[in-house]
């Protein structure tokens, strides 16, 4: 008996092992290394990296340092994107899931695939497609606007259009993932609850509010948190579509961090910035988690 318990423990450990190895090699070690770097004056071209303690962090909070501008301006822009995109990523994801689920069997699979396909495409392809569609002077969308005698919209060169375009492109690209998660959650809501609701005379809307939403709450929380994290990590879309413009209005935090690391070669500063960014993301996620648990 004891023997077999030992064996099953070993087997389960072995199952965990592949993930554990990947986690340690590709996540834990780099994070630790990054933290180590952030405590040094780490110029990529200098062989000597002197230890400076928390000086790099202090510089980020020192308003006379250029790092302060770089970090806060980037953070402000990233925050804007998060605020604009997350509610839509969740709401549209859920909306599509409800829509696709309401379709007859055969179409269901088809549309699920259609909406999911963009998710498998790389960000450069997404950016090129949307650059062509949104081009102010030769893009498809403005061409139609012109035909309808509507004013041409500077999709990527004026505010707030640049954010709107980036959010639209992001929605198109990643919405499939949230949709699939929501579809699975919707399928798990027990049919009996709806039947009971109907018998009691609940309208469609009431059934959605009082049965569907509470039943998929854990999934909702998961989607909100993963969408927030993903939106925080925005980089490719503005890098390729607006180049941070107009001016630096859409230059997000990750773009600034990458510049500091590889254009400036200041890995120490960049590491401090990214750890700070990670910290902010963790705080927000924990906050979201707490809020949704309190309501229960």
């Amino acid at each position, binding site marked *: 008996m004891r023997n077999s318990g030992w064996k099953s423990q070993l087997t389960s450990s072995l199952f965990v092992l592949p993930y554990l190895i990947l986690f340690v090699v590709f996540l834990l070690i780099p994070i630790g290394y990054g933290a180590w770097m952030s405590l040094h004056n780490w110029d*990529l*071209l*200098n*062989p000597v990296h002197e230890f400076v303690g928390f000086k790099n962090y202090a510089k980020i909070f020192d308003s006379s*340092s*250029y*790092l302060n*501008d770089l970090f806060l301006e980037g953070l402000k822009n990233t925050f804007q994107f998060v605020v604009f995109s997350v509610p839509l990523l969740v709401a549209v994801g859920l909306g599509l899931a409800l829509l696709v689920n309401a379709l007859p069997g055969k179409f269901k*699979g088809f549309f*699920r*695939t259609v909406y*999911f396909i963009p*998710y*498998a*495409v*790389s960000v450069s392809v997404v950016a090129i497609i949307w*650059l*062509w569609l*949104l*081009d*102010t*002077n*030769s893009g498809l969308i403005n061409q139609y606007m012109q035909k309808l005698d509507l004013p041409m919209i*500077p*999709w*990527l*060169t*004026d505010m707030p259009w640049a954010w709107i375009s980036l959010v639209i492109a992001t929605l198109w690209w990643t919405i499939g993932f949230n949709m*699939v998660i929501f579809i*699975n959650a919707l399928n798990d809501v027990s049919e009996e609850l709806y039947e009971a609701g109907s018998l009691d005379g609940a309208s469609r809307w009431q059934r959605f509010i009082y049965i569907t939403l509470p039943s998929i709450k854990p999934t909702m929380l998961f989607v909100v948190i993963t969408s927030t994290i993903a939106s925080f990590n925005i980089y490719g879309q503005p890098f*390729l*579509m*607006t*180049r*941070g*413009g*107009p*001016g*630096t209005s859409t*230059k997000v935090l990750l773009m600034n961090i990458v*510049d500091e690391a*590889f*254009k*400036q*070669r200041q890995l120490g500063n960049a590491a401090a910035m990214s750890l700070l960014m990670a910290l902010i993301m963790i705080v927000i996620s924990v906050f979201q988690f707490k809020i949704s648990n309190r309501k229960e």
Partner: protein
Amino acid sequence: MKKKKWLGIALTAALALGSLAGCSSAKDTSKSDGGKGEKITYWAPFSGADGPRMKTIVENYNKSQSKYQVDLQIVPQSDYYKTVDLAFSGQKNAPDVLIMHTDQLKNYADKNLLKDLSDTIAKTGVKAEDYSETAWKAGDIGGKHYNIPLDIHPLVMYYNKDLFKAAGLDPEKPPTNREEFLADAKKLTVPSKNQYGFVVPTLWPNQFIFPTILFQNGGELMKDGKPNYNSPEAVEALTFYRDLITKDKVSPANVQQDGEVTLFLQGKNAMHLNGPWMMEQWDKAGINYGVAPVPQLGTKQQAVYANAHNFVIPATVKDSKKLDGITDFLKYVAANTMEWAKSGQAPASKAIYEQSEEFKQMKQQPIVAKEFDYAKFAPAVANWGQLSDPLWAEVNLALLGKKDPQKALDDANKKAEQLLNK
């Protein structure tokens, strides 16, 4: 069950795409079957259409002799300097010889990472006189010499010959100065057809265009080691450039990233300033285009902004046999860069651009070479990339009509000064 299978397929597809992307960024080693001599590792960022040209040169060299074996490794442009930095910081095996852009030379030279070639050159017969002076001198930093030039790529003007003909202009006589440029641009603009004389980009390649007009005005980007973005010459340049949109109306407003390229490809942009690397794209699209030196858009002198590819040798390479091999290879390259010219570039070796008849028969390349004498590079300061970032962002705002040119350049200068005093 069915659902899971479907998800599996999607995941596999995503993984496959991911790994494909991984492949494309992996290093591309050219296998050559030539002799087995002293091995020389050579890094270059030629991941575009120019890659195969360089590969051919290396293969021909390896076949031509058996003492040395050059191993060309192409690192994609976007990862190039990251990879080079890691090599220099000792985390990766460094190459024996590598390509470096002119605007990067100072960054590495300042940190003593490049080999001073002054004495090696004198011994081996790679001579300054064999190369364009402009290109060669860019490698003189602090009394030492660091580069052996491969090419210079200045800004050039492309124009659509069909549109010139339709507007009643001579397609063999592109404009050469500001007046002609403006007059032609106005004739070439047909608002009803969405056709424009010169579409003003608001982002890239203004990193080439704005300094060109500024240099032509007699201005400088840096003065006495300080940013000089808001000089009267710079303000004049930006005002002229912006007036093309607002006053002369030869360009639409709000041009987005690559918008001017799209319009040129669609035959709706008559004149276009860009680098010589665009040639193959126009050829593929089948446009009836002409190439000309950039007109003198500034008020004082002819000038053009350029960057260049150079060979450099890491300071750590000391083995004399290796150094001999590198010089032997570079001498071969200087005499045999016709192949390189085929990608649209103009080699900086006089044996090609001054003496080769085949070169002179080419369409674009001799025009590029014409600009060599007055071409100017980015200011030789460390971290020009970072120092110039505020300038491009403010030029962008001015061209989008969000800021007055003077105010924009003042702001850019202020930010650059802050960066310098960090």
